[in-house]
């Protein structure tokens, strides 16, 4: 062994807990670890050279509702108090499970006792001919948000590729800042996966009426090019769309490029069990990067939403620290809350009704009210609402506890919010 190698090993930094990532899953894990283990050394490595923040807050930075200096979820004092080394501006590039070594992009190597991979996701850029030559925005980092915000005043016609939550939020912001907005979505409706077609149509209607947003669903982009007026997107079976700003909101994919050679099993995301353990001992994964069992059929699914990241992070942290009160992950339930143009929408649970399920829909398109309840054997399978207040957390509990709603069925169907509260207040006693 060379002398330089010996020196490197001798000075190699060691940490009991290493958390790669610095958003919701990472912070929840850190908190859970510190609740049980006050002394173990803890290092959090964040890709961005900033204090931790949430990607979910970014649309509000774009709109100006959030001050970009006030969106940080933790400060230096917090890390000092928790005796945690927060290393920002560094990405994980390699994991060597055999030696328990993690390598960062500056070449530094850390030896860890336990490692949590909470590296999140990054935007997917669709493979469209000519796309590499056109300028476009994405919205995943604070810098992305500030860049997009700077563009708002001079944007006259924006194209938003993808009608997911990021795309819809951005479309609203762009429209409110005075731009003409066109949304292009490959699937047959906006917000696929969260709302059914009928609810999606109500939401799309608000965008069209209040925001004068043009929405093309079922539409494929076949080519992109830079023209004198800006970006031109050629669409299958329709006239091309030209805009001076293009935002890509076509979904995200887990950040897993550091995995090669690690032996950690990965499908679309890193595969984990109910304790968020990966296939390799001593290594956990949580949040948008992890692929855990679905609540409904136990198949491993990506569930890239904030509450899920918090829950998975907490479970991973508890398991890493040996918290004996840990209850395993009960499975991914898709859910979200979505506010747009002063309206509120909530979705909890699966919109795919199983065979034999009871589906109750109350819709008033003029009042933009919508409520859909799916009951499976008397238990809540999913509930979706627009302008109909629901306590999403209570509904989530009813789904995952498989609470039998039969005794309160009529009341629940009539007033799900009140009945849900009454049920939960009893279930807790």
């Amino acid at each position, binding site marked *: 062994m060379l002398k330089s190698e010996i020196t490197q090993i001798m000075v190699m930094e060691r940490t009991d807990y290493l958390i790669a990532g610095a958003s919701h899953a990472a912070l929840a894990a850190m908190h859970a670890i510190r609740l049980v283990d006050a002394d173990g050394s803890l290092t959090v490595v964040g890709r961005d050279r900033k204090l931790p923040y949430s990607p979910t807050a970014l649309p509000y930075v774009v709109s100006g509702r959030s001050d970009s200096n006030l969106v940080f979820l933790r400060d230096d004092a917090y890390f000092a108090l928790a005796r945690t080394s927060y290393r920002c501006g560094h990405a994980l590039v390699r994991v060597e499970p055999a030696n328990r070594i993690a390598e960062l992009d500056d070449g530094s190597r850390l030896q860890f006792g336990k490692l949590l991979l909470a590296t999140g996701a990054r935007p997917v850029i669709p493979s469209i001919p000519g796309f590499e030559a056109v300028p476009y925005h994405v919205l995943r980092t604070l810098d992305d948000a500030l860049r997009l915000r700077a563009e708002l005043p001079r944007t006259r016609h924006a194209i938003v590729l993808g009608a997911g939550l990021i795309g819809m939020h951005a479309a609203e912001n762009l429209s409110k800042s005075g731009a003409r907005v066109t949304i292009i979505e490959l699937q047959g409706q906006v917000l696929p996966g969260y709302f059914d077609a009928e609810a999606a149509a109500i939401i799309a209607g608000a965008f069209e009426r209040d925001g004068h947003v043009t929405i093309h669903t079922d539409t494929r982009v076949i080519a992109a090019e830079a023209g004198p007026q800006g970006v031109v997107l050629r669409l299958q079976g329709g006239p091309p769309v030209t805009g001076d700003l293009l935002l890509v909101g076509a979904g995200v994919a887990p950040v897993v490029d550091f995995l090669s050679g690690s032996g950690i099993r990965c499908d679309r995301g890193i595969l984990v069990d109910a304790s968020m353990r990966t296939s390799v001992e001593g290594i956990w994964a949580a949040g948008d990067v992890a692929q855990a069992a679905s609540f409904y059929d136990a198949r491993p699914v990506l569930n890239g939403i904030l509450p899920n990241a918090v829950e998975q992070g907490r479970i991973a942290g508890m398991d890493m620290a040996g918290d004996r009160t840990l209850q395993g992950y009960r499975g991914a339930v898709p*859910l*979200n*809350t979505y506010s747009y143009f002063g309206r509120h929408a909530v979705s909890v649970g699966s919109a795919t009704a199983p065979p034999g399920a009871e589906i109750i829909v109350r819709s008033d398109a003029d009042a933009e009210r919508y409520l859909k309840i799916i009951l499976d054997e008397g238990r809540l399978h999913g509930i979706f609402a627009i302008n109909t207040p629901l306590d*999403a957390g209570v509904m989530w509990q009813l789904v995952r506890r498989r609470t039998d709603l039969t005794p309160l069925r009529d009341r629940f169907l009539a007033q799900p919010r009140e009945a*849900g509260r*009454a049920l939960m207040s*009893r279930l807790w006693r």
Partner: protein
Amino acid sequence: MAAYNTIAFHADRCDGCGDCMTACARAKTASDSPRRARLQVLADGAGSFGLAMCRQCADPECVPNCPAAALRKNTETGIIEWDQAKCVNCLLCTVGCSYAGIVLDEVAGHVVKCDQCGGDPACVRTCGNGALEYLSTARIYNEVGALEDLFVPGLAGCQGCNTELLMRHTLRRVGPDTVLAAPPGCVPGMGAVGYNGMTGTKVPVFHPLLTNTAAMLAGVKRVYKRKGREVTALALAGDGGAADVGFQSLSGAAERGEEMLFLVIDNEGYMNTGMQRSSCTPYGAWTTTTPVGRESLGKSQDAKNLPLLMVGHRCAYVATASTAFMTDFYAKLDNALQASKRGFAYLHVYSPCTTGWRFPPRKNIEVARKAVESNFVVLWEYTPEAGLKLTHPVDDPAPVKEYLEALGKYRHLTSEQIAHIEHHIVANVAAVKQQASAQP
């Protein structure tokens, strides 16, 4: 780490009137709409009412679900605070809450949650049924917990005895400028006075006779007063010493208004010396001097109501307390301490004795609670100015049989004896209430 005050909900006392919601809506929204209240009382479909309200969780789920850092747990007050300036109205906090404690107010257009009105909750003030209660027990942990323990470590009580708790907490609160009298009984028996020339306390302590505790303490206090030193004269006495042979000096000191705090730990007998009966031993109880056999079935007389006798002395302060109701005890200890600066303060604490009453050590607090809930003992306080007031009225008492059956010393009771005890309880409550209704 601080402890926090909380709003407790007693579902058994709630009739669903909704006044709390109206009061909350008025306090928080300038409307009368119960729908906009931060707490929601709901018929739970099972014949009673439930409450949806922020529980100010110790490890909240709403806070980590906020992407905009608009929620935080205030570690001083325990309140989960919502910052309107930072809130982006995404409602993800409501996903984290399983209690419907942070909810969308459609009229306001943003989420709302309870902030306990800064320490004087409007809902609690309004509830006429006592279903909502603002618990300030946290004060005990935060304030009293920070005070110095003035007893030495290693006091040797019986297993499960709560007297050590009572002694240590009392002396902590009364403080270092104290002269302590510990007459014969369990208190010195545990080592409070000390061994081999060393005291068991960090304050001056002496061991008077059973008969002269109040007289000696009165003298000591007067000497300090003459010397211009402000001290609290504190007695930690048993019921035997206070109610029987010590009663003459106790009565005399009370009548003269000697400035002292006389705390009686009532375990219903001379438990330290072998469980003999005292005049505070209840009717029917087994003791070694009221045995159970052919000739005798436990004590054949009723207990003397010593605290009511002290009211007859018109002391500056008289109260009864129980170790199952520590908030009530602490409030009374504070009041008694204040009163002892101007006159005679008497505090009578009912203290179950695991050894002498024959019950498992782990059940001490449960037994103490059952005594109160069955009206076997009544919690009240008295000052000459305000008269006597019940501090924990029990209008619908639990059957006393449940209390008696928990204790080995009543195992032999005949149905006639139980009937006698039930009758005595009714008479005793009536006597206390009569005193309570009397003009001060």
